[in-house]
Each structure stands twice: as structure tokens, then as C-alpha cells.
């Protein structure tokens, strides 16, 4: 036997493992990295530098390192910043409440209807964001059937009482802005939730039931914790763009519902105060990064998306 083994050993000389393409990973990284450098890093630096310049659009800007602009910006626009976080947070919670049952149904119960439902969730993306938001103006218009119905069941009075609207209609109110945000970002909530609930093994829920957990307990102990990665991803994908949104508040809100995105938009394009707009952009960015870091720590998951 030993001889046989020796023959086999010499018969097939050990081939050196070929060091094939150590550069391959870098080559694969390159296009993405280049893209990020050109369209993210460079603009960020430009924006940062812009915020520390002084001057005006006609005479040009000079870098002066004027850090105090940040303090000024916060002092002038803190209500808008807070409002943005508040609206985006509310819209995120609403999207979670609406999206979770839907995603759960799609992932666990829909069977062959699964794909059709998925397409229906994505379908709104076939029309532009702007058009969809404009459509809400029609839906919520003062003499439309939705308002009439809401008035007849006393819903408008309720909204007015809790301060979400200022009169007996729906449009141009906090309510309309939050609805718009919720609607527009709902798919970003549903898709990650769907992905994580789809992976949930229904036998685990069965096992929980077998081990004396009522359906409620089984949800709390098994389904919910196992869907947390989807919840975290979905809330981030909803909250972050919603906090910087400037379309919904402009089209569906009033002067009391101006969000920070709308302020930045008008400072850049109408007032032409580039340094202030740049500084506000950075403040928003920092705020979101801090909030998200805190949230992810709290949620205790590293499995994002």
C-alpha cells in the first residue's frame, strides 16, 4: 500500500497554485471608487469649502474660514431642522405600521400572488416622484370627495383639534406633508421588510407555538426579532431621504410646514446665498449621521441591508 501511495505521489507533480490576478479585486473596485470620488468626495469638499466662503454671486466668493455661519444657520433655521426630523420620524413610523403587515402578508401568506404584489409595490416608481406628489394635491383638494368624506365623518375636525391642520380642509397642512412623505417612501420601507420576512422560516413560528407561545408571544419573541434587520434598513431608507425632502413640504404644505430641504433649495436657487445653503446642507448631513448612528447602536444590529 505504501508503495502505491508513493507512485501516486510522484506520478502527479504538485502544481504550484497560480497567483492569478491579485489586481482583480482592485480592478473591480475601481469604477465604483472613481464614481464616488468624482461625484461624492469632490462635491463634498467643494460644498464644505463653499460654506466657509464669503461674498456674493456677482462679485464672486472668497474663502475666509468663516465658521460662525454654522452658528447663524442653526440659530435661524433650528425650527425647520427640528420640523424635518419630526415629520420624517412620523412618516417613518407610519410607513412601518403600514408596511410591516403588508410585507408580512406578501412574504409569508401570499403564495403565488407574491410577485404580483411586489410589482404593485414598485409600480408607483414608473411615474415621477413630482407627478405623484402633485397627484396628491388633486386627491386632497378642498372640493374633492376625499375632503368631503373626511369632513362628514369628523376626521378633519379631529385633525384640526390635534393641530395637524389649521382649517376644515386637508391640503396645505402638516397632515398633508406627512401623508405625502409616508406615501412616497413607503416602498423603501416595504422592500427591506419583505426581504427579511421572506427569509423567516415559518417552522420557527410553529416551534414557538409548540413551546406554549401564543400567536402574540410568538410574534414578539420570534418573528419581530428576526425581522429587525429589515426594520432597521427600512426605517433608515425611509427616514434619511424623508428628512431632506423638499418636494412634499412645498407642494402639500404651507408656510408653517417648511422643511429644511426646502430652505436649502431656496437658498441655493432663489436667494443665491451659497455659503448659507452649503452650511445648512452640512448641518442636515451631520444631524442625520448622528441620529442614525445612535439609532443603529440602539437597535443593536450590524446586519444592515
Amino acid at each position, binding site marked *: 500500500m505504501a508503495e502505491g501511495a508513493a507512485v501516486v505521489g510522484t506520478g502527479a507533480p504538485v502544481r504550484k497554485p497560480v497567483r492569478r490576478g491579485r489586481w482583480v479585486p482592485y480592478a473591480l473596485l475601481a469604477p465604483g471608487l472613481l464614481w464616488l470620488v468624482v461625484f461624492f468626495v469632490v462635491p463634498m469638499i467643494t460644498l464644505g469649502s463653499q460654506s466657509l466662503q464669503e461674498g456674493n454671486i456677482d462679485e464672486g466668493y472668497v474663502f475666509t474660514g468663516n465658521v460662525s455661519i454654522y452658528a447663524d444657520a442653526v440659530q435661524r433655521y433650528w425650527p425647520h431642522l427640528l420640523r424635518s426630523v419630526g415629520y420624517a420620524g412620523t412618516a417613518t413610523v407610519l410607513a412601518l405600521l403600514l408596511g410591516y403587515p403588508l410585507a408580512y402578508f406578501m412574504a409569508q401568506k401570499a403564495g403565488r400572488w407574491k410577485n404580483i404584489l411586489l410589482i404593485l409595490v414598485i409600480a408607483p416608481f414608473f411615474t415621477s416622484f413630482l407627478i405623484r406628489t402633485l397627484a396628491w394635491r388633486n386627491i386632497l383638494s378642498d372640493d374633492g370627495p376625499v375632503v368631503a368624506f373626511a369632513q362628514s365623518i369628523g376626521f378633519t375636525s379631529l385633525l384640526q383639534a390635534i393641530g395637524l391642520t389649521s382649517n376644515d380642509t386637508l391640503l396645505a397642512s402638516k397632515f398633508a406633508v406627512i401623508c405625502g412623505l409616508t406615501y412616497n417612501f413607503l416602498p423603501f420601507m416595504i422592500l427591506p421588510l419583505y426581504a427579511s420576512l421572506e427569509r423567516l422560516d415559518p*417552522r*420557527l413560528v410553529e416551534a*414557538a*407555538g*409548540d413551546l*406554549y*407561545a401564543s400567536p402574540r408571544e410568538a410574534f414578539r419573541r420570534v418573528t419581530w*426579532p428576526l425581522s429587525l434587520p429589515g426594520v432597521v434598513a427600512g426605517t433608515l431608507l425611509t427616514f434619511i431621504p424623508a428628512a431632506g425632502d423638499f418636494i412634499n413640504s412645498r407642494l402639500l404644505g404651507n408656510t408653517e410646514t417648511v422643511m429644511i430641504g426646502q430652505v436649502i433649495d431656496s437658498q441655493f436657487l432663489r436667494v443665491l446665498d451659497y455659503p448659507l445653503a452649503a452650511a445648512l446642507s452640512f448641518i442636515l448631513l451631520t444631524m442625520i449621521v448622528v441620529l442614525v448612528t445612535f439609532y443603529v447602536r440602539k437597535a443593536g444590529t450590524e446586519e444592515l441591508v
Partner: protein
Amino acid sequence: MATQTTGDLKLSGLTKEFDTFTAVHPMDLVIPQGSFFALLGPSGCGKTTTLRMVAGLEQPTAGRIHIGDTEITDTKAHQRNVNTVFQSYALFPHMSVLENVEFGLRRRGDKNAVAKAKEALELVQLGEVARKKPAQLSGGMQQRVALARAVVNRPDVLLLDEPLGALDLKLRRQMQIELKRIQQEVGLTFIHVTHDQEEAMTMADTIAVMNAGRIEQLGDPATLYERPASTFVANFLGQSNLLKATVTGPAQNGEVPVTAYDTALTVAADHVPDGVKEVWLGVRPEKLRMGEHGGPNRLHGTVTDVSFTGVATQYLVRMPWGRELTVVQQNDGSNRARPGEDVTVSWAAEHGFALDASQAADAGVEEEG
């Protein structure tokens, strides 16, 4: 333990119909408390459906389930004092091993959950991995965690759904012994669903062989093996040589004379069903002897194949009418026959069994794949 009848599991007329077929035909069964019971059958025979009905995971179409005097037919799964070891283990991946085992105790508000869970982990010899996550354990260890998670609740009935199916052969043998030990230690009623006849025979006190939604035969392993009641059982539990034979007269000295292919043979009288004339005469391969020392029943044939399996040698012996008999001989040092050799095969009357010839001779053959 079996004398105490309060905790027996009783199925009465239990039936499950799905849209297009009947998975379980009306079934009546009593499983004594504290017994190790096996439901054995090929896949699709209804054994898992039966188990799931007992667990409360499947609603029966008709029939009743009792544990002792308490009816549990309409009790929800989480309110039944019944636990399951799932085929896939279904361990909660986000909890530690200990938390998995504590789960059932905590749901019932047990104050000593941690201590009991640790004790259960000791029982399956996994005390040292309590803090690990299930994914960090091997398949065999996960299987034991699943067992501990169910046993710790001391259910009235513990259900095992092919619990060893995912393990390799060696580990499976080890776990079979382990399971049996644990069952004897805790004294719970175990109902074990399996398609592996050897597994069922090794572990169970009583086996119900199921086929196409019905129980074919119920009995202890030895009875099922020595005196199968149908060709399905004869073939599904081990191998059988079946010869077409005719009963030729009444029993004499406890033996019934039969004729197979013009050869006069005898079968023990209590191995022959009453009032049947045309029979399948069955003999297990290891009951046949090469030569004439096996008994008065003799057949002559030619060896066509010899395979050496270590402990034993398996021969195929072709009979004059063309069929081959399988003969298994212990490797006790006697001479081995060679292919082409003419031999005599013999056996004793009490080693044969007769089955009603109206059944297909190949029922249950190779069904376990």
C-alpha cells in the same frame, strides 16, 4: 409506568383529508403513557400528518384526540402539553442555546426556568455550550438542543419528527442509543416518526407500520419482524423471501402442510392466517440455511451470486422455477458456497410465516429508497 392509564394518548377515528386525497384514514390508536412508540412508514404514508395533528399544528378533518381523560382535539397548539422535536430542529437562531431551552418554561412562567434548562442541557451533555448560538453548533449538537428544548417542559407526549434524518449514519446510531436512554431516564411518552425501519426497531417498544394513510400492523419489533401480517410489512421491515404456496390440509402437531412448486413444506400453525388457502409463504434470509441442517423444509437450487458483507455472506440461490431466494449466512467459519454450485436450502417450520396471497408480493419493497 405503563400501568398508570391516566396519561395514555388515545386517537379515535382520527382522519385528515386534504383537497384531493386522504392523508390519514380513520385511525384508532392507544399509546400507553411512558412508552416509546414509533410510527414507521415510507414518505407520504401519513405518519407526519398524524404527528402534526397530535401536536395541534394540523386540524383533523374528523376524529378525537385524548390524553388520559382530557380531550385536546380543539385545543390550540400552544395550550397543549405536547412538544415536538422538529425534523429541521427549528432552533431560534437569535437566541443562545440556553435561551432556546428556556423558551417553553418561560412562556409558562416557570420560576426555575434557568435551572431546569441547565439541567436539561446536562441531560443531553451540552452544558458547556449553553451560551453559544445554535449556528455555532454541529448538526448532532443542534439535534440534542432541540431534544432538550422539548424534554425540559416534561410534556405529556413528546413527538419526534424524523429527528435523526439529517445526521450521518454513525452519529445516528449514537443518537438512537442516547434517545432511548433519555426516554428511560425521564419516563415520558415518546412518539417517534421515521421511515427508517432499523431506527424504529432499535428504539421503540411498539411500532405502528403505516402505509397509504392506514396502520398496517401494530406490535413490538420482534413480532412485526417474525410474524408480519402483510406483505407490505414483510418487505418494509427487513427482507423477505416470498413463495407462492397452497395450504394442503389441517394442522398436525402444530404445523400446517403446504405445497410450493410441487414441494411439500410446513409452517407453524400460529403463523398461518385462518381460513386462507392460497398464501405467500415467507422466510427471512437469515433463517435460511445452506445445507440440510436448517430444518425439514428443503429447496434445491443453484448459487448465482455471493456477496461478502463482513459479518455475513449473502447468497442468491436460483430455484428451478426461476426465482431467486436470498440467503444470509453468518461468517462462522464454515465453507462458503461458490457461484454455480448446486445447493440445498433448508429452514424450520417455525421460521416461516404465511400471508394471504391476494396481496401484491412486492408491496413495500425498496420504498425507503
